C-alpha cells in the first residue's frame, strides 16, 4: 500500500507535462528537410522588369499593361491620360518551373517572345537555400519601321534574376541584364547594353504590397546623340486571388526589356513620369479545377 502511494506521487508530476512533451517530440522528429519559400513576389513582374516568379503548371496569365503619357504634360493632355500605350501578353506555365510568353506592344509595334526557368528555389528548414534564381531569355521583333531589313528589327535579352524573400513581408531582387539590338534605335547608342536591375517589395497587408525597381545601365546617360536615362519605377500590387493589379509610376514608356532598360527617355528629375498599370488575370487549365484559381 505504501509502495503504491509512493509510486503514484512519483508518476503524477511526470504525467502532467506529458502532452506538451509529445508535441515537442514530434517537432524534433520532423523529417522534412526543406520547405520551399514561395510567393517572393505577387506577380511575374516587379513593375516593368521580370521577377523570379514563374507561372505555375497549366496556368495561363493574360496580361494587359498600360502606360499613359507624362504627368508633366499639363492639363490639356489631362496629365498624360490622353495618350496610352499598351502591351497585351499571353504567358503560360509549362511546368511549375518553366514558362513561356508572347506579347505585343503598341509602342514600336513589337512582338516579344520569352522563356523563363526557375533554376534554384529558395528553401527554409534544415536544408537551407538562401536565394531563388530564375533565368530569363527573350527576343522580339520591332516592326514599326517597314524600311528596315528583317534582321535589323530583332533584339535579344538575357537576365539572371536572383531574389531572396527575407521574411513574410520583404523581398529583394538583383537582375544582371544583357541586351543586344541588331540595330540600335539612334546612331549614338551601342547595340550591346549591360545593365543591373535592383528591385524589391514590401507587403503592407496580406494582399497589398509596395514595389520599386531601378535599372542601372552601363553607359553614359543623356548624351546629345543618345538621350537615355536609367529606368526607375515605384508602384503598388493588389492581389485578389487570380487577379493581380499593379499600379505604378515610372519614367519608362515601354513594358519590355528592350524599351525600359534600353530606351527610357524620361527623367524623374524633370517630372517625366508615366502613370501605368499591369492587369494580370490567371486562368487554370488544370483538369480537376476547370474554373479559375482562387
Amino acid at each position: 500500500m505504501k509502495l503504491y502511494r509512493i509510486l503514484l506521487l512519483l508518476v503524477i508530476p511526470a504525467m502532467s507535462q506529458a502532452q506538451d512533451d509529445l508535441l515537442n517530440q514530434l517537432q524534433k522528429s520532423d523529417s522534412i528537410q526543406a520547405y520551399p519559400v514561395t510567393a517572393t513576389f505577387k506577380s511575374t513582374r516587379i513593375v516593368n522588369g521580370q521577377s523570379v516568379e514563374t507561372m505555375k503548371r497549366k496556368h495561363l496569365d493574360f496580361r494587359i499593361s498600360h502606360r499613359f503619357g507624362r504627368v508633366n504634360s499639363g492639363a490639356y493632355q489631362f496629365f498624360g491620360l490622353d495618350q496610352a500605350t499598351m502591351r497585351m501578353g499571353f504567358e503560360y506555365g509549362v511546368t511549375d518551373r518553366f514558362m513561356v510568353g508572347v506579347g505585343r506592344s503598341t509602342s514600336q509595334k513589337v512582338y516579344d517572345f520569352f522563356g523563363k526557368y526557375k533554376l534554384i528555389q529558395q528553401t527554409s528548414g534544415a536544408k537551407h537555400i538562401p536565394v531563388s534564381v530564375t533565368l530569363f531569355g527573350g527576343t522580339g521583333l520591332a516592326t514599326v519601321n517597314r524600311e528596315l531589313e528583317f534582321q535589323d528589327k530583332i533584339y535579344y535579352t538575357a537576365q539572371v534574376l536572383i531574389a531572396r524573400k527575407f521574411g513574410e513581408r520583404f523581398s529583394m531582387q538583383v537582375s544582371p541584364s544583357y541586351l543586344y539590338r541588331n540595330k540600335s534605335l539612334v546612331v549614338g547608342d551601342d547595340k550591346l547594353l549591360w545593365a543591373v536591375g535592383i528591385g524589391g517589395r514590401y507587403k503592407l497587408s496580406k494582399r497589398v504590397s509596395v514595389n520599386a525597381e531601378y535599372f542601372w545601365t552601363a553607359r553614359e546617360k543623356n548624351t546629345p546623340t543618345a538621350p537615355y536615362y536609367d529606368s526607375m519605377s515605384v508602384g503598388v500590387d493588389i492581389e485578389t486571388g487570380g487577379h493581380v493589379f499593379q499600379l505604378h509610376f515610372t519614367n519608362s514608356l515601354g513594358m519590355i526589356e528592350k524599351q525600359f532598360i534600353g530606351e527610357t527617355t524620361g527623367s524623374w528629375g524633370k517630372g517625366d513620369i508615366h502613370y501605368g498599370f499591369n492587369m494580370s488575370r490567371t486562368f487554370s487549365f488544370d483538369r480537376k479545377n476547370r474554373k479559375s484559381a482562387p
Partner: protein
Amino acid sequence: MKSWFVHAVFYTMVAVAVSGVKGFAQSTHYTTNSGIVRFSSKTPLENIEAENKNGQAILNTSTGEIAVRMTMKNFNFPNKLMQEHFNENYMESEKFPTGTFSGKVETSIDYSRDGLYDVTATGKFTVHGVTKSRSIQGKMNIASGKITITADFQVALSDHKIEVPQIVFVKIAQQIQVQAQFVLMPVNK
C-alpha cells in the same frame, strides 16, 4: 538505525522500480511521420482538395495522451497557384507554420488486444494560430502491433480567424471537411 537503513534500501528499490516503469512506458509510445491528412472545400461551384502525406502523430498508450502535428506547407494541391494562395493568403504559413492537436483519448482501450474501437479524443486543436478545445471522434484499429487512427471532422474557417474576402472569385466553403489517417508504429522497434 537499522530501520533507517532498511528504509533507505527500500526507497532505492522503489526508485529503481519506478525508473524501470518509466523505461517500460517509453515502449508504449506509438508514432508516425507519414500520416495522411486530406481536406476538401465543397461548394456547388467548385471543389478544392489538398493532401498532406507527412502528418505526424504520437500516442502514449499507457496514458492515452495523443499529439498530432502537421506542417501547412506540406499540403499538396493539384493546382499550385491555389497552394500558393493557401499558404500566402489564408493560412499565413510563414507566421503559423503548423497545425496541431494535443489531447487525450477519452475512451479506455486495452491496447494489448487487437480490435476496432470507436474513440473520442479531447484536447487543444490549433490552426492558423488559434486554439480551440475540441472533441474529435474517430476509429482506432489495433492489429498486428500497429495502431491505425482514422478521423473525419469539420473545421469552420471562422473558428480559426481564416478570412476569405468577398472579392475572391472562387467559392470557398465555410466548413472545411478534414479526413485523417495515421498508422502508428511502436517507438522502440
